[in-house]
C-alpha cells in the first residue's frame, strides 16, 4: 500500500513535463488578456546621455499609438526602486546611465504599432563621457555614475566605488614575512557575460479593481509585489503578481526591471499593457559583473597555504540592483574551502555606465574563484607538488571553522575531491598532447530565508501544495511533489503544486541561492507533518487508540499493536460524511544574525570539485575538452536525474564563460555583440567529449532527508580547471577569460613566461 514510499531518491518524470513537450505550457509571452496593449522601450544609442527633451507627438499621431510614457508623466520626483538601494528610476530622468536605459515607453494597440511609435519618438539628447571599465571608473576626475544626492550619507559618494567589502582574519603581513614561503601574486580578469535564458524577459500589468495585477517572468514574485506596492503606494493585498514558470532564470530574473514602468502605463491608460523584450533588450537588462582580481598567496614548502591576500574589483553597472550583495557575498568565501590562518579579502563594487549587473548563477563566486584557484594551481606548480595534494593538504574537514564565525565545513568535501581525481584518472598518465586541471569551489547558501507553505490533503487523499518558489527549470515542482508524496502517500499524479500567484500562494522570500529544496522543501515538509499530526488525532479517535499509540509517517498510519493503514483510509473515515480536507501549515525561517557581515551564516555550502582533461591545437588555439568531471556534495539527491541535470547545466554554462562568452563594448560603451549572432554560447557541438557528473551523498544537509542546495556549484570551478589543463598541456598560463582560440593562440605565440612552465606534471 505504500508503493510510492521510494519516491525520494528516485527520478520520476518532471511534474509539468507533459505540457512542456506538447507546447501547452504557457510562458508569459504566450499569455494575453483581453484588450491588452503592447509596449516597447525607447532608448538612446549611447552609454550615457543628457536627455533634454522627449517629443512623442509624432508617435502619438500614428495609428494605434496610445501613450508615450516618459519620466515627466510619473509622480515627481520620479520614483526609484531596487532590491538594495532605491537608485533605479522607473524611467530614466535627465540622464541615461547605460546603453539600453529606457527613457520612454510607447504603448499601442499592436506590437508593430508600438515599434513604429518608438521610431517616431524624437529624443533630444547629448552624449556624455561614460566610464565602462574599472580603470575609467576609478580615474581621477572620472564622471560620477550616480548623483551624489542618491548617496548623501555615503562617504564614498564622490567616487564610483559603491561599496567595499573587507573580510579578514589572522595577520596577513606577519604571515607573509615568515621565511621560507613561496609567494605567488597574479592578476586575473573575468569579463561581462549575460544569462541568455532562452525566454526573453516579459512583463504585463493590468488595473484590477482598486489594485493592480502584474505578470512577470520574475523569480521572486513576492519581492516584486513589495516593489510595486511601494512604488504605487498600494497595500500588498492590492498588488497581485502572477509569475508563470520562467523559461530559464539563472538569477537574471530575480528582481524587478521594467515592471514598474509597465504598471504606471497600465494604470494611466486603465488597460492591460504588455512588454515582451527582445533578446537584445534582455542583454541590455541583465548581466554578470566583470571582475579584476589580484591574488597574493603564500605557500609553505610542504604546500600549506600560509595566507591569502585578495583584492577584487567587480565592475557593476549603473544601478545597484543586487550587485553590491553579489560582491559582498561572492567574495566572502574567496579564500576557498581551505583552512588558511591569515586572510585578507577586499572586494569593491565599482559603478559604471554599463548594464546593471545582477545575480547570476554562482553569485559573485565564479569571478573570484577563477583567480584564487588559478593561483593555488600556480603555487602547486612552483612548489612541484601535485595540485590535488596541495588542495587536500589545506582542505577543510567537516566541522572545521575554515571561515571564522561562519558556518563550519558541513560536508565530507575530501570525498568529492578524491572522487573527481579518481574519475579523471588523475594518477594515471595523461594521454599525449593533453593536459589535466582540477579546481575546487564553494559558495555560501542562503544566509536568511523565509518560506511558507500550505499543504491541503483533500478528502480523496489527493494533495495540493502551495509554494511560492518559481520553477524555472530546476524542477522545484517535481521535488516538492516528491516530498508530499513521500510524506502523505499520494502518488505523484495526485499531487498539484500551485505556484506563481501572490494572491493565492503564501509568502516566499525568493528563489535563489539554490535554496528552494532546502528552505521551501522544509516548509512543505513541516506542512506535511502538520497534517500528519492532525491525522494522528483523527486516527486515534477513529481507531479507538490513544494518541501516543499512533504514528503517522511516509503515508502510513501505524498503531502500537502493529496495525497499519494508508493515510487515505483513515482520512476518509476521519473526515466523515461532510468530507472536507486537512490543511497543514509549514514555515521555514532562517533569521538574520546581527553582526554577521552577510546578515547570517549560510544554511549550507555548495561544494564542487571539477577536473578537466583538455587538448590544445597549437596552430589555431582551439581548446578541446576531452573529459569534464564534476562532483558536487549534494547531501542527498532527492531526484538524482534532476541533480545531474542541474550539475551538468552549471558545468556547461561554466564552459560558456570559460571558452567563448563575453560582452564586447565599443569605445562609446555600447555592446557590439548585442544578440545571438555574435554573443556565443555553447551548442550541442561545444560539449565536452565526455561529461561526467557525480554526487557525494552523506545525507548531511539541512534540507529534507539531508539534502543541500546544489544548482550552482558545478559552475564555480570550470574556468580555473580548464585553464590549468590548458597550462598543463602547453606550459602557458592564461589569466584572462574567455579562453577563445585567438587568446590561446596569442598566449602560445608569446610562449611560456619564465616560471610558467615550472612544476608541470
Amino acid at each position, binding site marked *: 500500500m505504500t508503493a510510492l514510499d521510494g519516491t525520494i531518491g528516485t527520478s520520476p518524470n518532471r511534474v509539468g*513535463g507533459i505540457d512542456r513537450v506538447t507546447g501547452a505550457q504557457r510562458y508569459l509571452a504566450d499569455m494575453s488578456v483581453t484588450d491588452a496593449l503592447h509596449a516597447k522601450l525607447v532608448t538612446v544609442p549611447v552609454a550615457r546621455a543628457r536627455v533634454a527633451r522627449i517629443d512623442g507627438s509624432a508617435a502619438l499621431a500614428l495609428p494605434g499609438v496610445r501613450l508615450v510614457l516618459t519620466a515627466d508623466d510619473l509622480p515627481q520626483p520620479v520614483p526609484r526602486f531596487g532590491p538594495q538601494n532605491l537608485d533605479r528610476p522607473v524611467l530614466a530622468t535627465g540622464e541615461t546611465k547605460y546603453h539600453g536605459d529606457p527613457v520612454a515607453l510607447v504603448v499601442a494597440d499592436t506590437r508593430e504599432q508600438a515599434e513604429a511609435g518608438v521610431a517616431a519618438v524624437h529624443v533630444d539628447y547629448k552624449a556624455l563621457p561614460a566610464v565602462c571599465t574599472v580603470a575609467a571608473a576609478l580615474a581621477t576626475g572620472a564622471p560620477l555614475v550616480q548623483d551624489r544626492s542618491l548617496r548623501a550619507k555615503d562617504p564614498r559618494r564622490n567616487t564610483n566605488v559603491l561599496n567595499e567589502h573587507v573580510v579578514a582574519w589572522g595577520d596577513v603581513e606577519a604571515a607573509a614575512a615568515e621565511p621560507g614561503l613561496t609567494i605567488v601574486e597574479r592578476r586575473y580578469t573575468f569579463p561581462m557575460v549575460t544569462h541568455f535564458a*532562452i*525566454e526573453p524577459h516579459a512583463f504585463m500589468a493590468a488595473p484590477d479593481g482598486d489594485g493592480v495585477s502584474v505578470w512577470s517572468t520574475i523569480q521572486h514574485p513576492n519581492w516584486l509585489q513589495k516593489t510595486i506596492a511601494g512604488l504605487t503606494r498600494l497595500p500588498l493585498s492590492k498588488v497581485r503578481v502572477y509569475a508563470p514558470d520562467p523559461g530559464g532564470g539563472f538569477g537574471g530574473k530575480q528582481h524587478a526591471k521594467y515592471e514598474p514602468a509597465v504598471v504606471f502605463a497600465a494604470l494611466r491608460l486603465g488597460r492591460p499593457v504588455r512588454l515582451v523584450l527582445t533578446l537584445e533588450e534582455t542583454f541590455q537588462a541583465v548581466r554578470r559583473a566583470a571582475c579584476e582580481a589580484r591574488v597574493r598567496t603564500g605557500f609553505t614548502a610542504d604546500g600549506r597555504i600560509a595566507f591569502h591576500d585578495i583584492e577584487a574589483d567587480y565592475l557593476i553597472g549603473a544601478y545597484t540592483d543586487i550587485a553590491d550583495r553579489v560582491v559582498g557575498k561572492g567574495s566572502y568565501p574567496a579564500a576557498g574551502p581551505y583552512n588558511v590562518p591569515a586572510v585578507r579579502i577586499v572586494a569593491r563594487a565599482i559603478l559604471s555606465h554599463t548594464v546593471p549587473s545582477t545575480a547570476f548563477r554562482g553569485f559573485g563566486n565564479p569571478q573570484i574563484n577563477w583567480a584564487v584557484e588559478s593561483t593555488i594551481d600556480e603555487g602547486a606548480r612552483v612548489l612541484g607538488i601535485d595540485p590535488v595534494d596541495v588542495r587536500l593538504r589545506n582542505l577543510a574537514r567537516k566541522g572545521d571553522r575554515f571561515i571564522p564565525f561562519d558556518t563550519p565545513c558541513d560536508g565530507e568535501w575530501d570525498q568529492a575531491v578524491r572522487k573527481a581525481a579518481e574519475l579523471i584518472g588523475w594518477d594515471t598518465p595523461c594521454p599525449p598532447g593533453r593536459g589535466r586541471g582540477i579546481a575546487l569551489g564553494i559558495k555560501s547558501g542562503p544566509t536568511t530565508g523565509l518560506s511558507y507553505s500550505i499543504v491541503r490533503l483533500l478528502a480523496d487523499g489527493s494533495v495540493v501544495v502551495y509554494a511560492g518558489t518559481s520553477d524555472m527549470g530546476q524542477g522545484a515542482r517535481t521535488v516538492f511533489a516528491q516530498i508530499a508524496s513521500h510524506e502523505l502517500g499520494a502518488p505523484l499524479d495526485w499531487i498539484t503544486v500551485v505556484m506563481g500567484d501572490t494572491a493565492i500562494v503564501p509568502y516566499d522570500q525568493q528563489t535563489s541561492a539554490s535554496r528552494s529544496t532546502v528552505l521551501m522543501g522544509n516548509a512543505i515538509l513541516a506542512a506535511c507533518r502538520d497534517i500528519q499530526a492532525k491525522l494522528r488525532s483523527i486516527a486515534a479517535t477513529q481507531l479507538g487508540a490513544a494518541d501516543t499509540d499512533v504514528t503517522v509517517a511516509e503515508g502510513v498510519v501505524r498503531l502500537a499493536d502493529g496495525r497499519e493503514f494508508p493515510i487515505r483510509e483513515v482520512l476518509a*473515515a476521519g473526515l466523515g460524511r461532510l468530507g472536507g480536507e486537512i490543511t497543514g501549515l509549514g514555515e521555514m525561517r532562517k533569521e538574520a544574525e546581527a553582526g554577521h557581515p552577510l546578515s547570517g551564516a549560510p544554511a549550507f555550502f555548495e561544494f564542487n570539485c571539477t577536473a578537466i582533461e583538455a587538448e590544445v591545437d597549437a596552430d589555431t588555439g582551439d581548446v578541446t575538452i576531452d573529459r569534464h568531471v564534476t562532483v558536487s556534495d549534494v547531501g542527498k539527491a532527492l531526484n538524482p536525474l534532476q541533480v545531474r541535470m542541474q550539475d551538468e547545466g552549471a558545468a556547461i554554462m561554466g564552459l560558456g564563460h570559460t571558452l567563448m562568452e563575453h560582452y564586447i563594448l565599443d569605445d562609446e560603451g555600447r555592446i557590439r555583440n548585442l544578440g*545571438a549572432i555574435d554573443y556565443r554560447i555553447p551548442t550541442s557541438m561545444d*560539449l565536452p567529449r565526455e561529461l561526467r557528473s557525480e554526487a557525494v551523498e552523506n545525507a548531511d544537509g539541512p534540507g529534507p532527508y539531508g539534502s543541500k542546495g546544489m544548482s550552482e556549484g558545478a559552475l564555480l570551478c570550470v574556468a580555473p580547471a580548464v585553464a590549468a589543463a590548458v597550462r598543463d598541456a602547453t606550459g602557458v598560463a592564461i589569466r584572462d577569460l574567455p579562453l577563445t582560440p585567438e587568446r590561446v593562440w596569442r598566449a602560445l605565440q608569446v610562449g611560456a613566461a619564465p616560471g610558467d612552465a615550472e612544476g608541470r606534471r
Partner: protein
Amino acid sequence: MPQTTLPIELTVNGTLRGIDVAPHHTLLEVLRDDLQLTGSKECCLVGECGACTILVNGRSVDSCLVLAVEADGADVLTVEGLASPDGRLAPIQAAFLDQGGVQCGFCTPGQLMSAHALLAGHPHPTRAEIEEGMAGNLCRCACYEQIFAAIDQAASGAAPAVTGASVRAEAGDAWAGAKTSAEGLDQ
C-alpha cells in the same frame, strides 16, 4: 502602398487552414498570433537559437526566418502536432520526458522538432549526427546529454525507462482501485 494582407492556404498539423496574412509577418508570428499556436517560441529572431523550429514540407526551419506568405501551399508541422489527436505522446516526446530532456522547457518545442526531423532522416543517428543535427537549438539549461539520450531512446524504439510515466500510471491505477475500500471504511 504595401499590401495589407494576402490570402494563403496551408496545412497546419494536418488541418488545412485558409488565412489572410500580412506580407511582412513571419510564419512564427502567424502561428503564434493568428493561429494561437504558441508552442513555437520567440527568442533570438535571427536563426541562432532554434526555439521557433518547425517543419515545413518535412524540413526543419527557423519559423522566425520564413515569411508566412512563403508557406502558401505548404505542409507545416509544429510541436502541437507531434502527439496523436487522442493525446498520445509521440515517442520522441515521451523520450524527452523519460530521459530528462526538458528543464525550463522553453527551448523544448524547437528541440523536439529538430529531433523529429533528425530521426526522419537518420533513424539511428550516431552521436556526431545528433550533435550536428541539434546544434541549431540552444538549451541554456544545457540538458544536452539528456536530449541526446532521448533521441537514442526514440531511435531504439525502446519502452519508456523504468522510472517513467508508465510506473506513475500504474501507481495511479492502483490508487484509483483502492479508493473503494476507503469508501467502505466510511460506511
